[in-house]
């Protein structure tokens, strides 16, 4: 029986939302301080070059310019460790990053110098006065070319910076048993996060000499990276995270904060830096484009017998999180299916393209484009209904995956897929030139960080004398409602209304660190931490109330500002009385709690045979499209998305994540591609990099299923990343259904469809 809660699982209108619609929220660029300077970044216009000469003297002398910084001004400009930008050091993966280019630039747009000036106009003019001479060096832009021994090397001796494998059974024997085999090579786009708020922040040195950086941060723990680069103690750097105007992983790696801190420290004045839309295009990381070669075999009865795959990801010019993204891809590469024989080889390769790193889906998304296309093509060859084939192969609770991880939660894929397909209703009619098709895609995506990272999350809850509560949590809020989830959980446990819970968040020196908003861990980790802290506070109250009521504490619960006996509700006392009594006796109803994610040993070899993730979210999306066969244009007619999210905390928010995931995934599938030609950016603004508008996304039916089997608070699972992964492939499958030929190169644009149709005719 599904448990009913008072706050959790309802449709909650959050308090932050009210501030947002009133226009009250101070986003990063809305913040100003007296005497504030404006920063700009001088960037490379070569994809691969040595800096022969750099002369900033004219810029420095320009009236109104207060400082110009180059690599020599940065105390610790180079880092050789695993990534500038994560909270914990892991493993053996070496990566070189530089704050400002000292001698070499490796991608078009790489930062070379910083300018801080009295006004933005002056800073812009000063950039034009910086003189630079390049000596162009050999470059490589195709990751497959970059893997060859003769390719120019981006760093060190090898462009392959990560390799992961899956090995299970014997694929040769497996394919020998197959009655049908489908082989295809897929390509997925270099997708841009395209959050509407640009990267932005303000830094200043406060009256205690602490460097403060107030910026749009998915990771407030970057204060450590700032401290390292500046060569100051970590205790002397404070990050204040703002409410973020969209992140999706784009504000996860280091963006403006290190630049800001350098300029603020050098000038002694507040400095603001906001990326332009163009800068977001050519200077900030993207989603890894992938080449995926898949060979899948099945028996005529529809059982998958073998999968062999080669996966190559374009890591761009710097390593960032590429090795981890590849782990996700490798583990998820089979799809949510039980396949007895698996051989997957995945490589991530440096090129002189823009660097690639975290983006919602984090590697788990690109592989869906391959595995869900394979399933549909297999179904077609077998003459089997696409859902029927999938049903015969879905993972079940208790199965062990090809990466040797046991599935410990319910797997409601069939329920999700049926619900999504049914929600499409009757099929639309086409016409002479318009063909209608439907596509299904099922996917799995982990939630929670990789389990060998010893992930933790802290939260501090205290009850005020009047029964209202304060929650302090470091968790950033990208718009996904992290703060509202925390508020709802505290309200549920303490029997309060959400209006009575004040959440203070996202300040590295004031709020307990809760970890990053990445890896769909926010609800799982910070939600559990909040629940723990709230339950500890509740225990202080119920222990005291038990004495006052002469009952055992286990018999008590909190609701509507009372502490009452569950079996005999008339027996109760006002909450405030219990609180008062606690205070009299020095038993303060507050708690700082740490939630620790379960730990597993690190991956021991490049063949992944260890559990890596806490759990997975399973779901399905179904799309109906209309293709104009004269032009290749796609019109999306209908969409349904169905996920088992364990337990909804805020139903509005879950649906919101699902619907947003549809739009962003639909973009990946049909229209988005950040193009670079020989390393030179082509689509760096919203005019040329197109994302779905309100006319491109149809009405979406969201079906929220709750198995209660998640590891998050109240049995919740994460939804942030799972919501997106299946969308593009659903659209691609729908197009295939409409026109009878598959476009394997995403995005499935009109031009690609047009020529695929021509090829079919010929």
């Amino acid at each position, binding site marked *: 029986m599904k448990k009913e809660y008072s706050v959790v699982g309802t*449709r909650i*209108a*959050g308090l*932050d*939302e*009210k*501030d*947002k*619609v*009133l*226009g*009250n*929220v*101070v*986003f990063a*660029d*809305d913040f100003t301080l007296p005497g504030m300077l404006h920063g700009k970044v001088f960037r490379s216009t070569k994809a691969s070059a040595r800096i022969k000469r750099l002369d900033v003297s004219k810029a420095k002398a320009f009236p109104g310019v207060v400082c110009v910084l180059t690599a020599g001004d940065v105390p610790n400009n180079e880092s050789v460790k695993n990534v500038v930008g994560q909270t914990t050091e892991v493993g053996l993966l070496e990566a070189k990053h530089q704050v400002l280019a000292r001698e070499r630039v490796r991608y078009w747009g790489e930062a070379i110098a910083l300018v801080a000036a009295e006004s933005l106009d002056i800073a812009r003019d000063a950039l034009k006065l910086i003189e630079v001479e390049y000596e162009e060096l050999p470059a490589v832009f195709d990751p497959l070319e970059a893997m060859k021994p003769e390719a120019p090397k981006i760093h060190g001796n090898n462009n392959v910076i990560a390799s992961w494998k899956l090995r299970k059974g014997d694929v040769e024997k497996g394919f020998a048993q197959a009655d049908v085999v489908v082989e295809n090579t897929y390509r997925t786009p270099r997708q841009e*996060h*395209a*959050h*509407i*708020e*640009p990267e932005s922040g303000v830094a200043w040195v406060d009256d205690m000499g602490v460097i403060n950086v107030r910026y749009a941060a998915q990771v407030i723990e970057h204060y450590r990276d700032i401290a390292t680069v500046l060569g100051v103690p970590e205790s002397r750097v404070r990050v204040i995270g703002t*409410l*973020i*105007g*969209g992140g*999706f992983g784009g504000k996860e790696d280091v963006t403006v904060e290190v630049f800001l801190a350098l300029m603020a420290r050098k000038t002694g004045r507040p400095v603001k830096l*906001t990326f*332009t*839309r163009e800068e977001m295009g050519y200077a900030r990381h993207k989603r890894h484009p992938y080449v995926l070669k898949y060979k899948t075999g099945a028996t005529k009865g529809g059982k998958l017998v073998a999968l062999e795959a080669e996966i190559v990801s374009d890591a761009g010019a710097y390593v960032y999180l590429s090795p981890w993204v590849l782990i996700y891809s490798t583990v998820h590469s089979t799809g949510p299916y039980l396949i007895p024989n698996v051989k997957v080889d995945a490589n991530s390769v440096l090129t002189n393209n823009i660097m690639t790193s975290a983006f919602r889906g984090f590697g788990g998304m690109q592989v869906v484009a391959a595995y869900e296309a394979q399933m549909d093509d297999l179904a077609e060859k077998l003459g089997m209904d696409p859902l029927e084939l999938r049903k015969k192969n879905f993972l079940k609770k208790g199965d062990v995956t090809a990466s040797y991880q046991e599935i410990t939660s319910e797997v409601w894929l069939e329920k999700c897929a049926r619900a999504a397909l049914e929600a499409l209703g009757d099929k639309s009619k086409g016409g002479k030139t318009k063909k209608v098709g439907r596509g299904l895609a099922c996917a799995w995506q982990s939630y929670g960080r990789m389990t060998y990272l010893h992930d933790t999350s802290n939260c501090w809850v205290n009850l005020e004398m009047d029964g209202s509560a304060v929650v302090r949590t470091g968790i950033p809020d*990208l*718009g*996904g*409602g992290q703060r509202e989830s925390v508020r709802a959980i505290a309200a549920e446990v303490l029997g309060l209304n959400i209006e009575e819970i004040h959440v203070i968040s996202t300040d590295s020196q004031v709020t307990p660190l809760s970890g990053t908003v990445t890896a769909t861990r926010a609800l799982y980790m910070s939600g559990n931490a909040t629940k723990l802290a709230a339950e500890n506070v509740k225990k202080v109250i119920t222990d005291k109330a038990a004495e006052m009521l002469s009952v055992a504490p286990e018999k008590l619960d909190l609701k509507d500002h009372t502490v009452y006996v569950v079996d005999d509700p008339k027996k109760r006392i006002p909450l405030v009385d219990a609180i008062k009594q606690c205070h009299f006796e020095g038993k303060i109803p507050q708690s700082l709690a740490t939630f620790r994610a379960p730990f597993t040993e690190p991956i021991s070899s490049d063949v992944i045979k260890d559990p890596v993730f806490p759990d997975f979210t399973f779901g399905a999306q179904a799309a109906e499209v209309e293709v104009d066969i004269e032009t290749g244009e796609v019109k999306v007619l209908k969409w349904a998305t169905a996920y088992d999210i364990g337990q909804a905390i805020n139903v*509005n*928010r879950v*649906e*919101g994540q699902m*619907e*947003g*995931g*549809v*739009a*962003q995934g639909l973009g990946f599938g049909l229209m988005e591609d950040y193009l670079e030609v020989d390393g030179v950016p082509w689509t760096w*603004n*919203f*005019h040329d990099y197109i*994302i779905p*508008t*309100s*006319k491109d*996304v149809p*009405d*979406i039916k*969201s079906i929220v299923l709750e198995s209660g089997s998640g590891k998050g608070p109240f049995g919740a699972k994460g939804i942030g990343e799972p919501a997106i992964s299946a969308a593009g492939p659903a659209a691609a499958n729908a197009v295939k259904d409409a026109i009878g030929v598959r476009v394997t190169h995403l995005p499935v644009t009109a031009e690609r469809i047009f020529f695929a149709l021509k090829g079919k005719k010929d």
Partner: protein
Amino acid sequence: MSDPNLNAGCMYDICITVNDREIRGRVKAETSLLDFLRENNFMDVKRGCDKGDCGACTVIKDGRAILSCITLALQADGSKVYTAKSLGTWDKMHPLQQAFVDYEALQCGFCTPGMLMSAKALLDAKPKPTREEIREAISGNLCRCTGYQKIVDAIEAVARGEYR
């Protein structure tokens, strides 16, 4: 104002009525309306792209929803401009604002002020639009978080009279 050669330097006096308040200033010829608004603390008008491609800067000028980032401030000299802050207060929200909250028609909230102004302009001109007409009216306002579903639901709810 009629012959620029008579002006000393390149700064111009300007007066725009913003949210029913006269705002005076001195601007350059190329200063955008968005720049002027934000310099005068109307921070609810957002800068998303500065090139007219995203709609985050949408305001209502002389009754029409326009993009303030590609409008010169001087083009709005003498005009009446309304931003999202003109719609309501904490105690008395505009029906559109209340609907957006109730229907969760926002997540990060960055596109929301511009989105609200496009919605208001639509309902002022056409009180009972179809869902298709709503989607058309907000097609210049990009949202990356919501997938537009609940935004359309919220605007439709107001049009339907749910907030009278």
